[in-house]
């Protein structure tokens, strides 16, 4: 595998993990709000 390809795969993985993380943080906040309401 070329170095350029590996760098792309690495960058995509880093961005995917950051996206999943942000999604989970937002979900956590929403669930906390719902817990307060119910």
């Amino acid at each position: 595998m070329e170095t350029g390809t590996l760098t792309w795969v690495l960058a995509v993985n880093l961005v995917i993990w950051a996206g999943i993380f942000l999604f989970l943080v937002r979900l956590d906040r929403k669930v906390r709000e719902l817990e307060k309401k119910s």
Partner: protein
Amino acid sequence: MRKILQLALLVLGWLVILGGFLWAPLGKGFLGHSSRILFFHVPMAWASFIAFIAAGVWSVRYLIGRDEEHDRSAAVAVELGLLFGVLATVTGAMWARTMWGAFWNWDPRQVSIAFALLFYAAYLALRSSIPDEEARRRLTASYAVLGLAIAPFLFFIAPRMVPTSLHPEPVINAQGKPAMESRMLMVLIGGFVWATALFFWLHDLGRRCARVVARREAPPLPVE
């Protein structure tokens, strides 16, 4: 405190990805960069195993104390175990395509994880097929307790019983020592911590969501 732990998990995830791609050396006997998938495949399989065992433990606690919260915890753990198990199977199949030439080779490890996934998929089917809540909780908890014996057998014992497996040597070899280069081992241990912490965070979220839904669906208290 919660935010600090979340941030630590984000950084740990990035470190594992960076370490797996840039810092850890390539594994000996692997084609190209295929050994790098190890840092994601093995922790996913580990998180799946942890989830199934946790489901069994919460089910035992439910059967002892009849606390609905333990039943919800067990169900969420099984769902997450299936998610991580599917990820482990998919990453394993990607690796097998490179190394063995086909995504699925009926290798003992592939077959045993497929059995484990079917066993726990049946848990969810059982859960959705019993209308009576009390009976459903009791039966599914008993089923998940059975999993406490099934999961270790399928994850650790069954694949080792067949000597013809092409699967690489486990992380801890027959001599009880880690059989890999130290940098690879460090990234892999980081991967284990990352996957385990991710499981517990996802589990906390799933359990709390299930509790909110249960509260909303509960019939209103009679007004005196």
